[in-house]
């Protein structure tokens, strides 16, 4: 066996997995704070990428200006969706809310097609282009820098979640909404905060993803694998999302090379099935996760 090649393939997989992990955190954040299974996460990611495309390519802004603006735009979109669509659904059957997020996804895709058409586009380059070597193992610069950025964002998020007042409010609301209300936490504001932060994270993932593979409305399909990641990791577990993201990224990469690309999704969905059979709440999720 060519171990160097195996290491390269593994590193590529972990790089791809870091994007799954990052997007999965956005998903988990929404679920933890609001108990909403947001199937529009892939579409939110797509909108973030298109915002960067519009600002960076359409308005020709520098990437260091376009990226923060696209992130803010993604955050605002998250808050708008929460305030305008999700909050009025509070108290409704979870299936209804779940269906609403599917509808939201369609609306976002339709809106993007109306504004930018469905033609695939390339994002302006913003990552260094020099090949990266770890020892003798090659890593594509996009994958390497994508991993580094995702890792920094995840670390920042974990710190915020742990130490920032808003993060504490988020955790308190996630563990017991009633108690959080009683302690004076503004729960509706926490809802908005969760969706806003998730929108920003999803937009960031979209920009990183778009930098690798370009943007098109089809990139929303990425959300489907992210759904597998969060189910495997546990819908309400940040740690589970991180681990499952990296695991699935690595597994798809190794399977794709050694068995063939046609088996990548097959193996991913077999893993999903096994987890659902053995631990339906996911590897690290809480037992009380509601079955839909």
């Amino acid at each position, binding site marked *: 066996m060519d171990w160097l090649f195996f290491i390269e393939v593994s590193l590529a997989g972990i790089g791809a997995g870091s994007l799954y992990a990052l997007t999965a955190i956005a998903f988990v954040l929404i679920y933890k704070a609001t108990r909403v299974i947001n199937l529009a996460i892939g579409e939110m990611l797509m909108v973030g990428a298109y915002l960067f495309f519009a600002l960076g390519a359409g308005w020709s802004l520098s990437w260091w200006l376009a990226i923060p603006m696209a992130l803010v735009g993604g955050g605002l979109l998250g808050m708008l969706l929460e305030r305008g669509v999700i909050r009025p659904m509070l108290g409704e059957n979870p299936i209804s809310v779940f269906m609403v997020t599917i509808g939201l996804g369609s609306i976002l895709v339709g809106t993007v097609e109306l504004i930018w058409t*469905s033609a695939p586009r390339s994002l302006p380059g913003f990552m260094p*282009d020099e090949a990266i070597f770890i020892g003798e193992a090659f890593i594509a*610069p996009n994958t390497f820098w994508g991993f580094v950025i995702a890792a920094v964002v995840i670390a920042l998020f974990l710190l915020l979640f742990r130490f920032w007042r808003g993060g504490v409010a988020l955790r308190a609301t996630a563990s017991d909404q009633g108690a959080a209300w009683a302690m004076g936490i503004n729960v509706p504001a926490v809802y908005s905060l969760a969706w806003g932060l998730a929108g920003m994270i999803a937009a960031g993932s979209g920009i990183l993803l778009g930098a690798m593979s*370009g943007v098109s409305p089809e990139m929303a399909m990425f959300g489907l694998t992210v759904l597998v990641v969060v189910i495997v990791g546990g819908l309400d577990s940040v740690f589970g999302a991180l681990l499952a993201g990296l695991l699935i990224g690595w597994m798809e990469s190794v399977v794709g090379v050694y068995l063939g690309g046609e088996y990548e999704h097959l193996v991913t969905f077999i893993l999903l099935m096994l987890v659902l059979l053995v631990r339906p709440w996911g590897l690290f999720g809480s037992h009380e996760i509601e079955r839909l």
Partner: protein
Amino acid sequence: MKGKQILSAIAAVLALLLAAAMPALAEEKNDIVIGGSMPLTGPFAFAGIQFNRGLRDYMEWLNEQGGIEGRKVRYVAEDTGYEPDQSVAVFRRITSRENVSFYFGDSTAFHQTINRELDRRDIMMTGASFASELNDTERYPLQFMHGPDYSEQVAILLRHIAEEDPGARVAFIYSDTEFGRDPISAGRETAEELGLEVAARIVTPPGAADISSAALELRRARPDYAIFHGYILAPIPDFIRRARQMGMETRFMGTYYSMDQSIIDEMGEAADGFMGVMPYRYFYEEDAGESELMRAIHERNDEYQTIYYIQAWVAGSMMAQIARETLARGEPLKGSRMRASMEGLDEVDTGGVIGVPVRFRGNSLPVGRIYRADVEAGRMVPVSDWIDLD
């Protein structure tokens, strides 16, 4: 009495309106109708909108030239969103209210699904799909392609490679979709027949975002040429960039749907040297004036028109030729009769958009030319003569 007068007046007006409408109705009845299930929204809309414009403009131009044997041509189409069930619904709607002679389909799935219905209603069809499966006169007798099918497109590329670089190593990179898998097994056989070595077959899952590991696989195979199929844009730029970063000198090629000018516009520098097969002349080609159809396209358009727009003109031109031939034989414009006329054609009229005389082989026109992206010039330039597989 007053009431009677009013009734008489209404009757007179109605009679006048009817009399005025009669010639129009009679005229419409005589029209040759071309129906279309068009993907004006959805993932294929970038091409669908151009097909629609192209067919509409061609029919308008044709009518200005006097139509077909004095009969006007009318184009009727509706949006499908690129959903096969919607395409079928549109087909049923249009064919139930119009006497359709030709139809333009939007996807391989639709071409397969609607085949029996075409036979039943005796309608002839062409469309966006170049699927090899459709190139079967027994199973799809009322369908034709206005270019080479996907296997033939790959064969044209391989023939070019074999001439330029005998014994070269070739890799196929394709998406794990019906579209992507279409030409691969035939391509392997053709490569072997031409003395080329197939160095790798690399499959990417549908909608794959990250192709890092597939790019490593490509590096391990180190092919002289890599042929992409089953993609429009992504992940082609990513593959090419990564190959360059890894110091590879592989030359990259694509099939029809990845060969529009937009590949240069979107890929930028990375597109330089990208080659592919194209059955039609590009809008900006210097010898475009040799083609009657290209001249007509230029008269109507000052700005660049996509290959899909030009493709629609070719499709329209072929429908018109088949209809003319059938009418000249004194036959009605029914699918089975038109099939017979189509088979009798010594040469297919593409209005010069395909640069050599062509004829049908099965349901396709197995001709194309290799073009290379010249980023400095900002356009696709031909690097081979027209290659006819016939």
